[in-house]
């Protein structure tokens, strides 16, 4: 018996119960997916549902295999990923820059306020036709879409993040004789790091929405294009496969941001 003296049997039981519960949750999560796929496949095989409309797991797997073999899967992923990346960088970077500008000049902030509210309420997809005319029917219009959908939200949430920073902390810095630039660099920006990370998290998702919307409107490549194309020629296997790839991509991007968040906010733990 090698139970460490500080581990009481109550604690051993507690830890056991904890482990069992974790295992149960994980099994449940994986089991649900497995059962769902199984049911879908069986229902399609036995013609309870029409696989022409609903597709089925084996056909999705086959479609993915074909896309992998002719290499087009990676082209479409690459195109969507790149468009999302540029849209994200421009939207988030530009939004933060503008937010700093609005913080710097409260007068400018108050003048801009009603315009931001209106632009925020406007469904960005309505700008699609304009963007296509202005930027051409290629990737730039799609990146423009992702930019527009993320930039306004970024400005609004960052400005309110800046304003949430404790006024007394700013007073403390002023008492030390800090310049406005020093206040920005030493308190405002690091102090609103949590809002910044929230903005980044939201923007990764929003940009993907913008890119897919853009690809629906105008494109020759990308997962959005694949989905629309699949729908138009009634290849639901292609649509399902693209959605699956898109879901995995979104999850990976979210994981990446969460990982970065943990690294950046070490002081909160």
């Amino acid at each position, binding site marked *: 018996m090698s139970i460490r003296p500080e581990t009481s049997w109550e604690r051993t039981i507690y830890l056991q119960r904890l482990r069992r519960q974790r295992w149960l949750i994980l099994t449940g999560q994986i089991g649900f997916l497995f059962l769902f796929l199984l049911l879908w496949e069986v229902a399609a095989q036995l013609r309870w549902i029409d696989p022409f409309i609903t597709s089925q797991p084996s056909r999705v797997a086959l479609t993915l295999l074909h896309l992998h073999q002719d290499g087009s899967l990676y082209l479409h992923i690459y195109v969507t990923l790149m468009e999302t990346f540029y849209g994200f960088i421009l939207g988030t970077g530009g939004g933060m820059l503008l937010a700093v500008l609005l913080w710097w000049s409260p007068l400018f902030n108050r003048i801009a306020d009603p315009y931001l509210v209106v632009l925020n309420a406007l469904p960005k997809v309505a700008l699609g036709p304009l963007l296509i005319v202005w930027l051409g029917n290629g990737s730039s219009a799609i990146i423009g879409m992702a930019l527009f959908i993320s930039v306004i939200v970024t400005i609004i949430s960052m400005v309110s993040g800046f304003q949430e920073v404790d006024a007394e*902390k700013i007073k403390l810095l002023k008492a030390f004789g800090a310049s406005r630039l020093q206040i920005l660099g030493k308190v405002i920006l690091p102090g609103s790091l949590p809002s910044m990370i929230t903005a980044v998290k939201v923007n990764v998702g929003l940009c993907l929405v913008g890119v897919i919307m853009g690809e629906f409107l105008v494109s020759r490549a990308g997962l959005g294009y694949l989905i629309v194309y699949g729908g138009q020629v009634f290849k639901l296997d292609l649509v399902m496969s693209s959605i699956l790839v898109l879901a995995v991509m979104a999850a990976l991007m979210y994981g990446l941001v969460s990982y970065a968040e943990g690294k950046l906010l070490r002081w909160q733990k």
Partner: protein
Amino acid sequence: MSAYQLEIRAVGMKYQTPQNETEAIAEISLTVSPGEFVSLVGPSGCGKSTLLDIICGLAEPTRGEARITGKVGYMLQRDHLLEWRTILDNCLLGPEIQKYNLKEARRNVLYLLERYGLGSFAHYYPRQLSGGMRQRAALIRTLAINPDILLLDEPFAALDYQTRLAIADEVANILRQERKTALMVTHDIAEAISMSDRVVVLSARPARVKSIYPIELPAGLSPLARRQENDFRSYFDAIWKELDVHVDPA
């Protein structure tokens, strides 16, 4: 050069808002000599904090002027340590802003932290420290720019009573050892008497100086020991009466 560390001459202050005008300070004149510890007591909302803001240049008085000889350090009610900086880096905030030689400042801060019992916590984050330790760190942050006069705005108000007594004792000792001049705002009469050479009683808003009590308790005693002195009680009673606190019956 004036012989005073701080000279407040006929300072008056009015606040403007779209709705109305508020007179925070009617007229205050006060001098503080080098090495002196002076406390301001007064009813809440009487413009004590406004006065400190004016002294360190954060607010412009409507009338009069506050003249300071030497450098001023401001200590606020709450510690306001930046959560994302370690204790050491928090204490280096002032030297960073004022563009000191950071190597030297770092050595100085580490020495102060060591000397006042925070040496082993230099690389901790603020949230890992107790309230009293955080307030001590805030004092060291203020001392890191080597000020000649410290303005203390109810520096212990956010602490629980036990910690408050202990930290007041420590802060008074630290300020005495570092030979700093201090002007403290508080609403705790006992705290003011136990720490100060003089207690200035202010009237309700708009503030003016009502009276000034030189505290003649033995100078070498710590604030906690001074609380045990016989005269402490009579000072307390006198200032209590002067403040004329009314608790309205419901």
